[in-house]
C-alpha cells in the first residue's frame, strides 16, 4: 500500500520459483490451503522457509526454521532483522539508493534493536533472528507473506510497514519471485478494496479526496460524491457510540458475532435507529434488524466477480437459483435504488462491471469475455491487449525510476493493548482451522470429519499446571467477559499461550473475550492478543 495500490505484489506461481520464504503470522497450510500448494512446490524446488508465528502451526512444521515469537512482538523482530541486515552489510544499496527514500531515518530507528534485545523482547533466540536476516537478505529471490497474524493487532499498519521495510532494504520487491504478499482471509477482501469499499477510496484505488477523480465518477454516476473519506468498520462502531451513526445497512456480515468485544458490538447495533441486514441466513445480527433482505449466495447463486490474493479478478456465476424469496445482491440494491427514486434499469452484472471498467484504469482491460477466456486476469490490466501484471512495482527497478520512490516507514514497538498481568497471565490468540470458516454460518452445514467444536487449546505444560485434562471444561476469563470451553492439549503451544477460534459462536462466544482495540488506520481489531486467565470448571459446571 505504501506503493500506491493495495494488493499482494506477486502471482502465486512466483512462490514456486522463489528461494526464500518468510511466512509471517500466517497458518496458510490451514487457512489458504491451495496457496500453500504453490508454496510447497517452492519448497520442493529447494526454497528455504522461515515461519514466524507464536504457535508451531502445521504451516510452521514445513519451515526449515520456526521462530516462535511472543504475540504482538512482530515489530521488534522485523526491526532486529532489518538491523542485522544493515549491520552485516547485506543491504541492497543499489536498490535502496535508486528506488527508496528515508533509509537513514529507518536505520536510526532500528539501531536499538540488537539481536539480544529483540531476543529478550520476542523470545526468539538471537541465532534464529540472525539466520533469518542473513538468508532473507542473501537469497536471490525472496517472498514475504503474511495473514491476520500481522493485521489483527492494534498496530496492524505498523506491523505491515515493518515487513515492507525489510523488502525495501533487500530489494525483494518488484521482481519475479521477490515480493510482499498479504494473503486475504475472505474470497473478496481484495475485491472489496478494489471496488472502493475503503473509507477513502473510489473503485480502482482512486482517492475520494482527489477532485479530478471524484469529478470523473460524478459525471458517469450523475450524482455528487461527498468529498471526505468515511469510516472504517471500527470507526463506525465508535460513531455509533458517539451517536453520530444511527442507521446501518449490513450486507453479508455478522458483526454481532465476528467483532471483537461482542458485548459492545451487540449493544451498539441494538441501539441503532434503523438496521437493514442483507444475508443468506437469519444471523444473530439479522435478528436485530428492522428489515432483512434475503440474499442469494454470492459464489453459487449470483453473477459477478471477485478478486483474489494474487489480484486476479475472477468470475462468479449463478449455478443454482436462490431459494424462496432470496435474490441477488445486485437486484436488491437496484430495487432499493428504485424505491429511493433512482431507476437504474434491469440489474445486469456485466453492465455494472463495464461501467467500473470505464472508471477504473487498472480494470479497464478486463472484459467478461477476457475473464472467461483467461480464467481471470490480474490487475492492473489497462486495456484489452494487456495480459495483467504478474507482479507489481517493476517500475521501481527502471532506470531512471518511473514515478515516486518507495518510502521506508520507521515504526516502533508497542505492547498489545490487553496487557498480561498476575490476574490475566495467559495470552490468548485466535485463528482459524482448516475445515471451518469464520463464524461457521457456511461451514456448519457440511459434515466435516475433523470438526471437534470450539476448544481452549493449551500447551501440555499449562494443562499439567492447571490440572486440566483433554476434554475438561475450562472457564476462560478476560477483562471483558468469560466463556466455558473444553480443553484441547496442543504441543504447538508453549506455556502462557492459548488458542481459540471463533467458528462455533453457538457453542462458545470467543469474541466475548477479545478486545476491540483497533488500529485507526486499518480498522482491524486486536483479535490476536487477549489476556486471559483459565480455571478448571467445577465438576458441577461440566455436567450442565
Amino acid at each position, binding site marked *: 500500500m505504501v506503493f500506491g495500490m493495495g494488493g499482494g505484489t506477486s502471482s502465486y506461481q512466483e512462490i514456486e520459483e522463489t528461494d526464500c520464504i518468510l511466512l509471517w503470522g500466517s497458518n496458510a*497450510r490451514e487457512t489458504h490451503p491451495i496457496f500453500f500448494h504453490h508454496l510447497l512446490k517452492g519448497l520442493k524446488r529447494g526454497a528455504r*522457509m522461515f515461519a514466524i508465528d507464536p504457535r508451531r502451526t502445521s504451516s510452521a*512444521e514445513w519451515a*526449515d526454521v520456526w521462530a516462535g515469537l511472543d504475540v504482538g512482538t512482530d515489530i521488534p523482530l522485523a526491526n532486529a532483522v532489518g538491523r542485522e541486515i544493515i549491520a552485516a552489510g547485506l543491504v541492497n544499496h543499489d536498490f535502496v539508493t535508486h528506488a527508496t527514500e528515508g533509509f537513514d531515518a529507518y536505520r536510526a530507528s532500528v539501531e536499538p534493536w540488537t539481536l539480544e534485545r529483540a531476543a529478550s523482547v520476542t523470545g526468539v*533466540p538471537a541465532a534464529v533472528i540472525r539466520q533469518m536476516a542473513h538468508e532473507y537478505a542473501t537469497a536471490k529471490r525472496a517472498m514475504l507473506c503474511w495473514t491476520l497474524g500481522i493485521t489483527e493487532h492494534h498496530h496492524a499498519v505498523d506491523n505491515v510497514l515493518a515487513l515492507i521495510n525489510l523488502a525495501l532494504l533487500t530489494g525483494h520487491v518488484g521482481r519475479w519471485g521477490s515480493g510482499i504478499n498479504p494473503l486475504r482471509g475472505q474470497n473478496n477482501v481484495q475485491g472489496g478494496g478494489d471496488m472502493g469499499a475503503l473509507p477513502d477510496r473510489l473503485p480502482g484505488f482512486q482517492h475520494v479526496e482527489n477532485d479530478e477523480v471524484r469529478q470523473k465518477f460524478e459525471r458517469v454516476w450523475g450524482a455528487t460524491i461527498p468529498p471526505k473519506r468515511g469510516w472504517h468498520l471500527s470507526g463506525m462502531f465508535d460513531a455509533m457510540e458517539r451517536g453520530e451513526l444511527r442507521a446501518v445497512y449490513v450486507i453479508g456480515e455478522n458483526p454481532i458475532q465476528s467483532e471483537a468485544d461482542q458485548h459492545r458490538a451487540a449493544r451498539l447495533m441494538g441501539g441503532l435507529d434503523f438496521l437493514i441486514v442483507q444475508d443468506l441466513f437469519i444471523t444473530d445480527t439479522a435478528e436485530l434488524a428492522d428489515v432483512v433482505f434475503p440474499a442469494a449466495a454470492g459464489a453459487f447463486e449470483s453473477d459477478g466477480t471477485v478478486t483474489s490474493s494474487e489480484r486476479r479478478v475472477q468470475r462468479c456465476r449463478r449455478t443454482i437459483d436462490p431459494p424462496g424469496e432470496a435474490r441477488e445482491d445486485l437486484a436488491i440494491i437496484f430495487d432499493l435504488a428504485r424505491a429511493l427514486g433512482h431507476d437504474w434499469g434491469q440489474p445486469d452484472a456485466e453492465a455494472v462491471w463495464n461501467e467500473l471498467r470505464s472508471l477504473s484504469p487498472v480494470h479497464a482491460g478486463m472484459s467478461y469475455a477476457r475473464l472467461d477466456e483467461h480464467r481471470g486476469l490480474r490487475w492492473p490490466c489497462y486495456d484489452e491487449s494487456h495480459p495483467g501484471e504478474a507482479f507489481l512495482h517493476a517500475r521501481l527497478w527502471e532506470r531512471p525510476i518511473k514515478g515516486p520512490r518507495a518510502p521506508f516507514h520507521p515504526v516502533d514497538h508497542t505492547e498489545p493493548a490487553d496487557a498480561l498481568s498476575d490476574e490475566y497471565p495467559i495470552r490468548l490468540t485466535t485463528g482459524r482451522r482448516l475445515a471451518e470458516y469464520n463464524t461457521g454460518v457456511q461451514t456448519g452445514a457440511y459434515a466435516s470429519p475433523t470438526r471437534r467444536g470450539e476448544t481452549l487449546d493449551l*500447551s501440555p*505444560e499449562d494443562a499439567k499446571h492447571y490440572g486440566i485434562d483433554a476434554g475438561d471444561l475450562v472457564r476462560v476469563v478476560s477483562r471483558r467477559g468469560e466463556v466455558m470451553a473444553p480443553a484441547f492439549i496442543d*504441543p504447538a503451544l508453549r506455556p502462557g499461550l492459548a488458542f481459540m477460534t471463533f467458528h462455533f459462536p453457538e457453542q462458545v462466544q470467543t469474541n466475548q473475550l477479545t478486545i476491540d482495540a483497533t488500529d485507526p488506520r486499518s480498522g482491524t481489531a486486536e483479535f490476536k492478543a487477549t489476556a486471559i486467565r483459565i480455571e478448571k470448571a467445577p465438576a458441577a459446571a461440566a455436567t450442565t
Partner: protein
Amino acid sequence: MDLHITGGEPTEDERAAVDALLGPPESGWEGGARNIAQDGRTAAGGHSVTGERHLLLPAFHAVQDRVGSVSRGAMNYICRRLSVPPAEAWGVLTFYHLLATAPRPAAVAHVCDDIACRLHGAEQLCRDLEARLGPPLTGGSPAAAHDTHGGGARAGSSASASMGWQRSPCLGQCDAGSAALITRAGAMPERFVLAPAADASAIVEALAGATAPPASRTVGAIGTPRLLARAGKVNPASLDSYREYGGYRALARAIEIGAEGVIAEVTASKLLGRGGAAFPTGRKWDAVRRQPATPHYVVCNADESEPGTFKDRVLMEQDPFAVVEAMTICGLATGAAQGFIYIRGEYPLAEARIGSAIAEAREAGLLGADIMGSGQTFDVEIRRGGGAYICGEETALFNSIEGKRGEPRSKPPFPAEVGVFGKPTVANNVETLVNVLDIVLEGGEAWARTGTTASTGTRLFCLSGHIARPGLYEVPFGATLREMIELAGGVPGGRGVKAVLLGGAAGGFVGPEHLDLSLTFEGARAAGATLGSGVIMVYDETADLGDSLHRIAEFFRHESCGQCVPCRVGTQRQLELLPALSAPSAPSASSAPSASSAASAASVFGELSVAMKDASICGLGQTASGAIESALNLGLIERPVKGGE
C-alpha cells in the same frame, strides 16, 4: 512436514532400539523430552529433517531385531524421528517380508521351500515343522495389525508361543540342500542360517538356542580359480591374512595408475556384469566418472536373491575384504566418496563379515579420508535388505536404500545419470567387482586371455539340485554344461538329466539335448537361454517339474512389487493358468483340464507372456514367464494338441 501421528507410543525397548541406531532425539519435536525453553521457541523442519528418510529400513530392522516385529507405536516413533508420514512408512514396512507388523514369537525360523530345497524334501520339512510348531506365521496382515501391541506380551511359556516359523523363498543355501534362517529378537538379537536344516528337530533346537557347527561346502574350479582363489584359505576376519594372500595390492596399483588408468584396464578387460544383464563394466564406470552432477555413489548389489544362486554369498563370507577393496577401487575410479553395499537380509554371516572387514579397513586407513595416501576419500555403508527379491533390480535397490518401497524405476534415465539419491551411481554385482582386482593387477588385456573373446574371464556357477556335489564352481568361460555337471560329480544314482534350470527362476530350462551348450554369454544367447546369475540346477529324469514350475510361478507372484499391471496381475494369472497348461496324456476324470482348455490356456498364456515381456517395467515381469515358457517349449509340460481333441 506436518506429520499427523495417532495411535500409540513406542515401548521403552522400541525407543531404545531406534535411539541406538539414530542417537537420542535432538528435541521434543522429534519425540524426545520437551525442553520448552528451546522447543517452545524454535524448531528445525523442512529440508534438514526430511533428509534422513534413508534410515527408515535400518530403523525398522533395529526394532524388529529388538522386539520381533514393528508395532504402530514403534513405527510412529520412527516416523517422528525421520519425519516420514506414517502411511508412507507403512507402505515401506509392508513391502519387505522379513518385517512383521503383528506381534510374533521372538524366535522365528524362515524355512526355505524354494525350488532347490524342494528337490530335497522341503515340503516334508515344512509339514514336520507344522506338526511341531503349528501353522506358519503370516507375517503381519493389516487386519491383525490393528492391535498396537505393548512389550512383553509375546513372551509365552510354551514352546509354540516362544517360537514360530514361516516359509521363505530361496535363502541362497542351495548347496546345502535345506536351510532355515533363524532370527531371535532381543537386546542381543541373533540371526543365523541353519544349513542344512536337516529336520524339524534341528530347527526347533536352533530356535531354542542351539548353535550348529558350520557346515562345510563345496567350492571347486576348472583351472586356477581367480575369484575363489582365497576362498576357504584366507581368514575372512583378518586383514593381515588377506594381505598375505595379496590383498590390497590391487588398490595400491589402482592409486598408482589413477582413475583413468583403472577405467582403461577395466574397459580393456571386456568385463561384463555378472548380475544378469551383462553390461560392459568399463563403460558403466566411465559414464559415471564423466557425469558433472555430484556426488557420485558406488552401490554394490549384494541382494543376491535369484533362486538357486549363492555365489555372492560365498564371496562375501569367504573373502569379504576382496569385496571391500574392489568397491574402493571402483569409488576412486568413478569419483565417488560413498559406497553402499546392499546385502540381502537372509545373509547374516555375509553381513557380519563384510561389516567387520569394513571396520578393519577403516581402522587401517583403507577406507575413509586419504586412502593409502592417495588424498582420496571413500567409505562404505552396509544396507540390509528386508526380504524382497525385487530389490536385486538396481533401481528398486536405490529406492530401498532411500527408504522407499523397492519399486523399480523406469529406465532411462539410467543409474549412471540418475541413481541412488538421484545422483550418478555405478551399481555392480559382487562377483563383477571382485573381478576388478585381478584386472587391475594383471592389466585388462592379459586378464581377458582367460575365457572366450566375447566372454572374458572366469565365471562362478552355482550347482544344485540333483547333483552329486552341489556347490560353487569357478570355470573359465567356455566350459560346457556337461563339463560342469561332471565337475560336480554328475547326477546321483547314474540317472539321466531331464532338464537343467539355467540362470535361476528368471532364466529358463534347457533339455538334455543342450548339455554341450557352451557356457558363455554368446553361447547361451544362441541357445535362447541365459546364464543369468550363474544358476545350474539339475533335474534328473524322475523329477516333478510341475512342482518346480508351480513354485516358480508362486515365487514371482510373491515377489512382484505390484507396481505395473502386466507383472502385478500377470504373475497372478500365470499362477492360475499353470495347472491348465498341462493336458492329461490320457482322458481322465472330468475335473482335470481337457485338452481343449489346455490349448486355450496355452494360447492365453502365450499372449500373457508376450505382454509381460514387452510391457513390464522391469526385468522381474519381463522374465517371470520365461521358465514356464521354456518348459512348455521343451515339452516338459505336455503340450496340448492344437485344435482340440
